[in-house]
């Protein structure tokens, strides 16, 4: 967990106070001068009451140009960012025809499959597009299962190391639709405090009781488990039907791995089921890309349910669940996303199959192994350089996600706009993705980045970091020139 220094927290709070004050003043003037516009709802309640969208109207709109930047090419290592302008102080942003070529440090393109790939896109995906068409327009159980879907499910099961797998068209819907099928009222879900919104929604939709344990803290998990099993359900004290503990492989806002061996040990001791969400870690970490289990040396048979997405490392879309044959067969009968939703688009399935084959080395080359080594080297190099420069960087070694702490809300647009003017596209994250006081910039390293790209990025970040003032830790003696000469 991040702990911000006192002075920074105070200044952040102060800046929020000033912004809130100005926001309230503006609201007051709006009420006084524009009251006719506000009162013409003719008896309907407004869509948003007073303070529900205060943050959106008064704070987010000021820095709106840092988010939702459109691009005009594939999200590869270098891409074209469309320029936008605003005539009314960021309230509306207009597209132009002009684009700027920028270095991409924001897209989830861990193994570089985002752009047209010689093995994947041309010819295989295009061939499957011509054979199976864009969509099947049907749910999996009706007439939407093609040979490709069956092939991909077998391949995923083999890749992840589980007996069987089931495929869905969207990662978010996988969590939201699976968790209610597995557990219902009378069950208990214990989830990590920093879990993703899809898991939270799935847990809420299931009707089970939810308890949270401190992020990555196996001893707190043990405390919670002991207390819950001993006292049972609230009010009636009946024992729980079952307990599922939900954790993620890599936490995308912190860049750190979960403490998988300890948590699995605790769950096995107390007979709780484990659900591991490997959205960001599958394909990107581990010696052969098989995810956090391989990285931390945990046997996949110890995790009951492994979930993952195909968007990040495989350049496709969709999600999967891998578990034992019985669980998968049961889910095929009950999971709403399997019974009702349109099945995954066949070209996207082919893209996932091809990229998985490249990673496994089954395409006849060693491109997969090269990509995996490349991303690991890139991540470790970049992280160590940033730390040497004095930035507060989160995340573990070998993790391709690097959040750089900004804290102050004004540093978000400053950092983002300044980097863009120097042709570096960076993602800055504010509320509601992170807590209010812990704003950060997040870097996602890709195997498609070359060493020169990374050095250029480091130069720009260092310059902008000095300008904006986010080097919270003292700088080491090694300068960037020495790095350039040492790596030549």
């Amino acid at each position, binding site marked *: 967990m991040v702990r911000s220094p006192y002075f920074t927290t105070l200044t952040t709070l102060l800046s929020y106070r000033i912004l809130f004050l100005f926001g309230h003043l503006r609201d007051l003037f709006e009420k006084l001068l524009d009251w006719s516009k506000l009162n013409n709802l003719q008896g309907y309640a407004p869509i948003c009451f007073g303070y529900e969208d205060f943050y959106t109207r008064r704070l987010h709109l000021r820095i709106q140009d840092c988010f939702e930047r459109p691009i005009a090419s594939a999200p590869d290592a270098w891409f074209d960012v469309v320029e936008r302008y605003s005539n009314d102080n960021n309230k509306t942003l207009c597209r132009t025809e002009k684009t700027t070529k920028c270095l991409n440090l924001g897209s989830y393109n861990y193994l570089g499959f985002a752009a047209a790939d010689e093995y994947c896109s041309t010819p295989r995906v295009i061939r499957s597009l011509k054979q199976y068409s864009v969509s099947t327009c049907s749910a999996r159980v009706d007439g939407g299962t093609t040979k490709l879907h069956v092939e991909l499910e077998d391949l995923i099961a083999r890749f992840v190391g589980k007996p069987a797998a089931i495929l869905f068209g969207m990662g978010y819907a996988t969590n939201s639709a699976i968790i209610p099928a597995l557990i219902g009222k009378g069950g208990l879900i214990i989830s990590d405090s920093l879990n993703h919104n899809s898991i939270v929604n799935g847990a809420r*939709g299931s009707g089970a009781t939810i308890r949270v344990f401190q992020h990555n803290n196996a001893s707190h998990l043990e405390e919670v488990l002991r207390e819950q099993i001993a006292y049972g359900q609230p009010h009636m004290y009946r024992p729980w039907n079952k307990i599922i503990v939900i954790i993620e492989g890599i936490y995308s806002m912190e860049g750190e791995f979960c403490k998988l061996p300890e948590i699995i040990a605790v769950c096995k001791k107390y007979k709780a089921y484990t659900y591991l969400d490997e959205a960001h870690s599958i394909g990107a970490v581990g010696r052969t890309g098989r995810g956090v289990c391989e990285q931390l040396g945990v046997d996949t048979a110890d995790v009951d349910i492994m979930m993952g997405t195909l968007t990040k490392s495989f350049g496709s*879309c969709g999600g999967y669940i891998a578990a034992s044959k019985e669980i998968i067969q049961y889910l095929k009968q009950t999971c709403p996303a399997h019974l009702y939703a349109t099945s995954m688009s066949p070209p996207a399935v082919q893209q996932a199959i091809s990229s998985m084959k490249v990673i496994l080395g089954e395409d006849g080359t060693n491109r997969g192994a090269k990509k995996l080594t490349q991303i690991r080297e890139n991540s470790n190099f970049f992280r160590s350089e940033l730390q040497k420069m004095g930035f507060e960087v989160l995340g573990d070694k070998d993790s391709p996600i690097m959040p750089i702490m900004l804290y102050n809300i004004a540093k978000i647009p400053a950092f983002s706009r300044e980097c863009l003017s120097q042709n570096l596209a960076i993602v800055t994250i504010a509320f509601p993705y992170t807590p209010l006081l812990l704003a950060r910039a997040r870097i996602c390293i890709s195997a498609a980045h070359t060493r020169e790209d990374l050095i250029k990025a480091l130069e720009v970040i260092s310059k902008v970091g000095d300008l904006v003032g986010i080097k919270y830790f003292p700088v080491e003696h090694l300068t960037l020139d020495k790095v350039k000469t040492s790596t030549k």
Partner: protein
Amino acid sequence: MASEIMNATSNALFWISSAFDAPTRAVVFGVPIDGHLVVEVLLVVVILFQLTRKSYKPPKKPLTEKEIDELCDDWVPEPLTPQITEEMMVEPPTLESAAGPHAIVDGKEVVNFASANYLGLIGNEKVTDSCVGAMEKYGVGSCGPRGFYGTIDVHLDCEARVSKFLGTPDSILYSYGISTIFSVIPAFCKKGDIIVADEGVHWAVQNGLYLSRSTVVYFKHNDMKSLEATLEKVTGRSKNPEKVRRYIVAEAIYQNSGQIAPLDEIVRLKEKYRFRIILDESHSFGVLGNSGRGLAEYCGVPTEKIDIITAGMGNALATDGGLCTGSVGVVNHQRLMSSAYLFTASLPPYLASAAIGALEYLEANPSVLTNLRANIAILLKELSDVSGLATVSHPLSPIFFLKLKKSTGSNKTDMHLLDSITNQVLKEHSVLIATTKRSSLDKCPLPLGLRLFVSASHSESDLIKAAASLKKVAAVVFS
């Protein structure tokens, strides 16, 4: 020893009697305060004090570590999933070609009525070419959520195209069909709001209603009188109409019955009782109306009167993803409040360009809708007298819905019967038909049935063959 106790007792008695017999020291309000009065008042005070004390409860002892260990050892969880039975092992038919009107299933050619390919766009060359172009330019996936460089210019073009087609101010794209509606509803409806919904809505809508935590009241399926009565009841109860948001949720064409919602009636009621309307047009977008603009065009209602329209693009538009359209305020609200928009990767760009291609095709060829309507009419005529099955869908609905004339008693046995019919139809006559599936999480009370998705590219012989085979098999099964 005894004498001392005797002395103490007699002393105490002396004090008590002197207190009782004490002369009047004062007169308050005309009442002489005698000694005994003081003692009686004290007694009353003590009684009242005792009455106000809580009853004694023995203190709760927390469990010791050893006891917790024992409880943990004794606890046995249920298995994660129940036992798999024989019938659960059935696999769906596997396609080996595109899901057009004729598909190849398990090696042989079948007539396909299980794909919602209403405009016949599966296999359309122009759409395929635009997808190839998009894939070569943008790759396959979009590798990021909309907020973080996942917004590609194709998405913005698609949103603008949809708005232009429907005549609404703004639209927003989602990356998956069913997650559209179950993310839109919680974005607008919060705890304390009131929603009046049709009881036959599909699972995604039910999930959205549950996640919104609002008060949900259901009205009888497609029954306007029941809707009016429910609205009357709900408005009567709520005190302050301008502080509580109120919504009516309905589908344009109901997936679970093939009925079409009477939009003009609903709009009249909504304006009378001051509700907003959320309409799910997944199966009517691109189908109803003279130019395919949906239920509003069909019923002659101006689109401004419908507050929020959502649609899945996996049906008439033959692509994937979802869209939501409405006023600028409605759409902008979703860009920061809708979870399936914010926290997930955006739609793959080739699917967005397929959607644009589909809309262009529809605008250039409105005759495809006449073909579709003609096909539905043919099927209606051919399937008017099937033994054991009754048509319940609307004559204009592309989802042709047949339910059992007499239910066998439970959903499970109904399902068996319907599955046996579709299996026989597929095996003996090579026609692929779908049954309505019901997940254990689905609370829809409508009866199960068979669904035929009619496409504009079905030929007359396809329709006659499907009708004939269904009639034959039904005659055998229900004899």
